[in-house]
């Protein structure tokens, strides 16, 4: 007889009823799932298809595309990087500080401030790290993108992943990847210009919990420049409701260039990024829950460290366009 332990499982649906159920499962099924992915660790160079599963059992199988399980395609990504290089080098003139703090292997959660009506911080961070560190970066973002035809597919091909805790855990713990998250969410990008560089609440600290659970460090990144690329003058809430967008901004770009060009073109603000020291949490991974007060403290201290870095960088910045 195998030893049995209680297993809590969910039979789907049945709202309003207790969804925990009491089937029993032999102990061996409780093996840490992460171990089966142990083979996927190691140093990684850019053209990565880290899908741990596909083709693993069918040696003869050849893929007709390089789309990994997240929907990311390295070939499309490299085309996009080639196209973006001009903007990165000459338009936004991106400068990094402390890039060596990005680990060359192992999972890590990159956490940054978020700004601009159509934020340029995400593509710039992803581009910069992929080009100079040589690792793919998966950008966690609102599931809103997933529901858009064409744009949603492109977003996912270029490394976008719906920000679900399970997705983040799998990326960080099982596949030891780099994931980028903006804890401010749309609260950051929907700020009007007068509120620039004042960080919003960092959600409910979910990003800290995920990093603890996955046993990976958080690497805060402070970004200066994004606020000036597409500053919001005011917002029209009724239009946001009507269109289903998270917010409906009237940007300075719109007022100057009209709705088409004003949406497509960001102002050429000078970008400066500073990678802060990695934050390690000395807690055991894979716990069901972590102390909420500890989580909120860590979340707040990361927010404060990014905020202070921003003030410091702004104090040294001469002009938003020239740096």
């Amino acid at each position, binding site marked *: 007889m195998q030893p049995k332990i209680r297993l809590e499982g969910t039979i789907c649906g049945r709202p309003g009823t207790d969804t925990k*159920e009491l089937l029993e499962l032999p102990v061996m099924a409780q093996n840490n799932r992460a171990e089966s992915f142990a083979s996927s660790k190691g140093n990684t160079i850019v053209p990565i298809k880290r899908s741990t599963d596909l083709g693993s059992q069918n040696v003869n199988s050849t893929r007709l595309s390089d789309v990994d399980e997240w929907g990311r395609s390295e070939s499309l990504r490299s085309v996009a990087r080639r196209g973006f290089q001009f903007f990165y080098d000459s338009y936004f003139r991106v400068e990094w500080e402390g890039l060596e703090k990005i680990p060359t292997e192992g999972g890590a959660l990159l956490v940054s401030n978020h700004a601009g009506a159509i934020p340029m911080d995400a593509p710039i961070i992803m581009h910069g790290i992929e080009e100079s560190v040589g690792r793919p970066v998966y950008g966690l973002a609102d599931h809103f993108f997933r529901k858009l*035809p064409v744009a949603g597919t492109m977003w996912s091909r270029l490394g976008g992943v719906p920000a*679900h805790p399970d997705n983040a855990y799998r990326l960080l713990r099982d596949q030891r990847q780099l994931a980028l998250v903006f804890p401010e969410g749309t609260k950051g990008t929907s700020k009007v210009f007068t509120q620039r560089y004042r960080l919003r609440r960092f959600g409910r600290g979910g990003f800290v919990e995920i990093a603890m659970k996955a046993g990976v460090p958080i690497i805060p990144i402070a970004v200066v420049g994004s606020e000036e690329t597409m500053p919001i003058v005011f917002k029209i809430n009724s239009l946001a409701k009507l269109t289903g967008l998270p917010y409906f901004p009237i940007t300075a770009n719109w007022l100057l260039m009209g709705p088409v060009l004003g949406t497509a073109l960001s102002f050429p603000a000078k970008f400066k990024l500073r990678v802060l020291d990695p934050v390690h949490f000395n807690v055991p991974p894979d716990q069901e829950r972590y102390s909420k007060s500890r989580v909120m403290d860590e979340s707040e201290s990361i927010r404060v460290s990014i905020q202070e870095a921003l003030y410091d960088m702004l104090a040294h910045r001469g002009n938003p366009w020239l740096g």
Partner: protein
Amino acid sequence: MEILGRRVLLTGLGTFWGGKVAQSLESHPDVDVIVGMDVTEPIVELERTEFVRADETYSILSRIVEATQVDTIVHTFMVVDSTQMRTRRLHEINVIGTMNLLAAAGCAGTPVRRVIVKSSGLVYGCSGRDPLWFSEETPRTELPQTAIEESLVSAEGYLRDFAQDNPHVTVTLLRFSSVLGNDISTPFTETLSRGFAPSIFGFDPQLQFIDEDDVVAAIEFATSADVPGIYNVAGDGLIPWSEVAKICGATNLALPPIGTEFFASLMRRTGLVKFPPEVLQLLRFGRGIDNSRLKDLGFVYKYSSLGAVERFAKTRRLSKAIGESQKSYTYDKDVESFFHHSPAVVRSTQSDSTSDTF
């Protein structure tokens, strides 16, 4: 850990899965008796399985359980393809059928010690808020939108209640992903065989498949091993739908992203493409179900998702070239009765002792 002389009752013997599972159970020497129920006759040749005609809601089931003293019930007769029948009948089979089945299995003094149920990954639903992978515990994010999902969710609810009320019964619930295979008819196999791959414009979801042989193997695995709990059963990995179409050489038919269901219903009218709402939803967001729990128990898949697609494409190309193989078997009561019961038939040793019990 095998119990000698297992006695198995199988629902849906006349369906594809029922027949396949019965065939595979027949080769198990420790399975003494296989009783298969259905409204329709079996479509595959069976050596020693006894066929009982019953209505879909199993009103005579408790009598059969008592008479045959079965210890294992394999419930394969869950409809997971809504194109096969009307909603009313679907409800009767999935919900009322499962309810009656479990009532019979749980009555006082029941000999039943094991129940294996074939369900579907459809119970997880499909929405933009879903994680990439569903584990057995991941709750669905939205309420069931389609009749098929609703029926499967309530059938699983009855099973959960049954498992709680009957702790002495080992309950195994298997949830399968979309199945591909040359013999099985699903919306995917039908449409791809006709050379079409309907899609929703601007979406290229990550899909997961399982080969039909792996489905049978998984049910067999669950029947022969003592594996209580819920298990996802699906091939490894996910593949973009566009790649599936490419492998199968199917033509992309893009439906508009708005009003998709309306245009799909027009397409369904033509009879060429039968994609029901639950599959359309899959073409928007895709779905992955994490199969690692069953693998941890030692189940080995023959095919990954990609492997299942490739195998399907290969057999389709073959049957295009040499024509469909004709089904040569039709059930005949007198013939079956002769082969099963006549003393004139020389039986192999393994089934020798068992055939007398009927």
